[in-house]
């Protein structure tokens, strides 16, 4: 798809979230969205497009108790969502159980026995605890554990349960998966610190869900690559041509390191001495020596290469903003502090650029999928091993794309 067609850049933000009714805490909902700021009002009926399952007025308003963010593609997010919604069917959880004998969630007990799907007990365990258990298992699964995911808790009580489960469960989350305390967990509302993805933001509405946070990085890289003649790969020392090659630019603001994608990845992978690994999680920039996150570089790279217009639009807006600010404030060299205003402006174009309603479609489908899933999938014949396997990853993937 991406090959022949125009490949999509890594989304600026994509998350799976656990929605909970503030009225009735037992009512939970799992969804995924690239834009939780828009999505939550939809669930609450403020905006159109909420899932049916969240449409009952009695249960509104809903709150996002936690989000799993950092998905590098809508496909991945939807796969994760599906697996989380259907832990008893997810092959990832099953496979995990094979390796881990520990008594996982009851749903998995079935999985262990063999083909778990025989019992579409889908909705039997829908407690918060169960969801957290599933989430924990998913994050430990072979498939998802290597993804650059983060879990951000907005509700204290949910995090408490999570922590309790962490203490009980045998497996540990991979180190690379960050758990961020946010929202209620914070005594004081955090400053809107945009640079750091890992920083708490205090509320869903403060999440940076667009590419604007890349603007500095993007600006630097694009500026550097516009005149690549003097640039050379920091690894292979050969000249680079940004038009023809995948060139990675160090995200560090002061670093002018550029390198071929494969060269840098090889360097990183060699450094961690895991020959079987294909994607590094992070590495040390050979130029500046700082530790750089692979995902961040890839997000910038893909956005720069695959959404050039949008990238340039972001830069233009930044310039405008900077100009305004400079005009207003004199000339402060702090474009970064631009904060919310520009962001709101920027959101629209970026989203539009990604394609007409592509995330909306995703949301709707995921929602519908989820809701229908209760009926459809429960009704589906349990024979399913194969079917289930395909379904789990498949349907969503197809739907999304």
């Amino acid at each position: 798809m991406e090959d022949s067609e125009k490949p999509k850049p890594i989304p600026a933000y994509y998350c799976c979230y656990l929605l909970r009714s503030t009225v009735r805490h037992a009512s939970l909902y799992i969804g995924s969205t690239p834009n939780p700021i828009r999505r939550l009002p939809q669930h609450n009926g403020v905006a159109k497009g909420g899932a049916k399952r969240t449409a009952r007025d009695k249960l509104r308003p809903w709150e996002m108790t936690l989000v799993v963010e950092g998905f590098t593609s809508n496909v991945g997010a939807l796969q994760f969502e599906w697996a989380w919604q259907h832990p008893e069917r997810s092959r990832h959880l099953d496979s995990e159980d094979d390796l881990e004998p520990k008594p996982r969630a009851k749903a998995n007990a079935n999985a262990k026995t063999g083909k778990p799907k025989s019992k579409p007990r889908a909705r039997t365990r829908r407690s918060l605890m169960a969801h957290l258990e599933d989430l924990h298992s998913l994050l430990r699964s072979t498939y998802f554990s290597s993804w650059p995911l983060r879990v951000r808790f907005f509700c204290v009580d949910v995090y408490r349960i999570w922590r309790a489960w962490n203490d009980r469960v045998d497996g540990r989350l991979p180190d690379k998966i960050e758990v961020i305390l946010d929202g209620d967990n914070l005594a004081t509302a955090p400053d809107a610190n945009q640079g750091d993805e890992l920083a708490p933001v205090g509320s869903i509405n403060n999440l940076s869900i667009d590419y604007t946070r890349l603007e500095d990085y993007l600006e630097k890289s694009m500026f550097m690559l516009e005149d690549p003649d003097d640039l050379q790969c920091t690894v292979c020392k050969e000249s680079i041509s940004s038009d023809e090659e995948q060139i990675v630019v160090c995200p560090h603001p002061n670093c002018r390191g550029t390198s071929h994608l494969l060269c840098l990845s090889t360097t990183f992978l060699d450094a961690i001495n895991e020959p079987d690994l294909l994607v590094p999680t992070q590495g040390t920039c050979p130029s500046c020596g700082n530790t750089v996150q692979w995902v961040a570089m890839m997000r910038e790279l893909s956005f720069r290469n695959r959404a050039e217009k949008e990238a340039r639009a972001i830069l233009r807006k930044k310039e405008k903003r900077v100009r305004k600010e400079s005009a207003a404030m004199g000339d402060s060299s702090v474009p970064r502090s631009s904060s919310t205003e520009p962001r709101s402006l920027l959101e629209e174009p970026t989203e539009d650029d990604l394609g007409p309603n592509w995330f909306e479609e995703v949301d709707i489908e995921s929602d519908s999928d989820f809701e229908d899933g209760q009926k459809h999938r429960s009704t589906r014949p349990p024979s399913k091993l194969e079917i289930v396997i395909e379904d789990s990853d498949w349907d969503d993937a197809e739907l999304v794309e």
Partner: protein
Amino acid sequence: MASIADVIILSSSPNPPRSPGPGRYDTKPISRALPQGATPPPIRLTSDLSQPHTRSRFFPTPVASTTCPEDVTKPKRRLTKKDPTSDTSKQTAPSKPRRKAKRAADAPGTIALGEPQSETVGTKDDAVKPTTGRPRKNAKNKDSGNMTLAGKVTKTSGDPPTKKSSKGGKKTVATKLSPSEDASEKPTPKESNVLGKDEALHLDEATRRRMDWTPPRETAYEEIATVDDGGSPDKDRDPSLMRGFGKLVSDYSYSGSALNPRDLVQNANGEGPTKRRRIELANPEIQALLNGRYSDSSDQSSAQGENLGKPKKTTKGKPKKFTTLTARMTAQYSTNYAEEDEPVIDCLPDIRTTKERRRKAKETEKQSSFTVLSPEAAVEFLNDQDLVFGTCSQLERDDSPQTLRETQQAIRASESLPHLEGPPNKGPSAVHESSTRFASRLAGTRNLWCVGARDTEGSLIQPETINVIDLTDGGESPAKNSHDNMEQASHKPLQGDWYELEFADIDLPPQKRPSSLPLTERSLDLDTQVQAPAPIPAASDTAIATTATAKVKAAKTTKSAQRANNTPTEAVGSQPATSQAPSMPQYTGFTDAELSKQVFSYGFKAVRGRKKMIELLQQCWESKHGSNATSDTQPIGQPEQQKEPVSKKDNVPKPTSSAKTKATVKPKSGTFKKNRKPLDATKPTSATSASRTNLRTSPNKNSRGKPITASSTSFIDVEEIQDSEEEIIPSPSQVQKHYTDIYSKSKTGSQLPHRSLDILTKSPSPSPTKRKAVSSNTSAKRMPSSASIATAHTAESSEEISLAEISVKITQAVRVQPRVSPLSSSRGSRSRPTWHEKILMYDPIVLEDFAAWLNIEGLGLVGEDREVGIASVREWCESKGICCCWKKKATW
């Protein structure tokens, strides 16, 4: 038994059409009942079960005949069959037709009476209504009762005659079959109505007689009564006598006087309720009532398709059935067994299992041709066929066909006795049945054992079964060895040494080996053996001998046969890699934890499946110790592994396993010799078997064996051929994905012998020069062969086999993929990122595209000729945490 059932049927069926008969029934039943009771009771005892069925037959049959053409065919068959029986019985006992004639005369009278009594009948019918059996009849009866008696009468009169006419026609057919009965019968049905009335008057006498005859009647009736009770709710209804009889009449009405009266009598005499009924019947003896009932019943029957059908049957049945029960019984014993058998089969499902029915049906069919002397004919049939009793193992181990034949003859002789006895004893039906059953059993066994005999004689299946036996039964091995020795001794003079070798390898049954047509048979047996052994030159023999020697040595060394084999092979001039072979650990024996540890030790991440882990470990081990070692090692591991899976082998289709095993083994094996030797070692699945084969082969081979280096090369060509052939066969293996390497390995042991055979047979054909060239290129060729194999197999099957290996290859391929040179394309890798770049950029990997690339290009870069399926690619992606997805549908 059968005869009784038949009689009952006839009686019941004729009654309804001849509805007028009821009065008669009473009278006749008395007269008939007496004779019946006297003779038949013993018979009935046996036949009790059959009788209810008979009724059931009647019901469906008439319906079928009248209503459903389809059903008609079956009932017609039955009827036709019955007809001859009845004819025969009639012939034997002319007295019955006479009675029928009387009954027929009575019948018209009953009809006349029936009209006026219809009112009473109508009331009775109302009472009867609650019974589920005939709502229609009841409704009609009510209507008739409400409307007018005359209307009913007309219906009865009109319908029954039509039925009768139809019946008459059928009867005519029957008459053709048996002229004597037909003549009597034809007139009887038509006349029966009139006569029936006349006889109805005699009811009183009949009742008296009944009283006198009670004791014998009881026995007979009890049985019948049971039948009636079970068969028809009518008896239950008997308290309301009219109702029950109405149904009974409808069922039996036409039977003419005889059958119905019998039923009545039976009811009366037999059980308590029956007696009561009978009394009641006696009370209502008023002919008018009875006649009315019958008329009503006849009306009902006419109205209802079922009833109509019944009368028709009755008509058909009448002539035959009218021949008295006793007469038929006796006559049947004297003459027709086949006919009797058929009804019995139908009637006695309970007693006889479905199998028996089938057997009997077969017998009956067979016997039908031999109508007169069915038992003898059956015996002849049996004699003609060779029956061998015993398990497959026993059969296989029987030394010679002669012994088998002798045993068969003995069996025949022993079995033939009861048959012969049965027919002469004609008197007791039970004995007769038993004899028939015997025949049936024999026939059934015959069928079953025909297959077995074929197996013994030699078929494709045999080698497999033999192998299984060997594998499963360790204790039997000595016996088999002896057997093999016997075979060898007998066959050596006849056939060349190489034949013997083949046999040893294949474990073909002894019979085949001696056969004069070894070539054809073998070709059939072994798919691979396309080429006839005849052209094999002396060199081939020598080569074989060399192999044999190797085998012998291996046998001596015992289970680690491969080592021994390898050593000789090395001596011959093959590659020396065997020493390492033993070191290969048997991963199948490891626990999951151990396996996981091993996997980690090789630097791999945890792999999900145990099978995969094993594969991975084996591959790792191979890569570590070199291809040669690996080739040897796998086969070595197989025999031991086989022990566990042996039981499973049977379940698992061999072709799949063979394909898998080959795919795995070939690429790994350093040289064909090695492959072959391990195969040979594995062939005997168990070490014992291996030792046996070796021992057997050893003397011959040693004597002739002249090791030639060329022999090793010669095998190479053969293998390729084998691969292509066998692999194609196993393609269906996809289904058994779950049976992973272990099964395949275990299977390999069993199947390997085939390969070895193929090798042996085919090896001689290729020219030595070619062989050498091939040997040099063997490694190169193997890969393509394996690839072709993979292509032949479905992607999935191949996936699991090699997933562990392939995953490594995939990663290599992904890494190796050259970046698109900037010169070649304007935008280079940026517009067309390599797969690794895509992965690095977290692009969701489209499995289809990725798999396609791997198969077309990627794996080729790594020197992997196999192909990967999408599923395996998916496994790989997920194990790496690479986001993968399926190609979206065209919609996007």
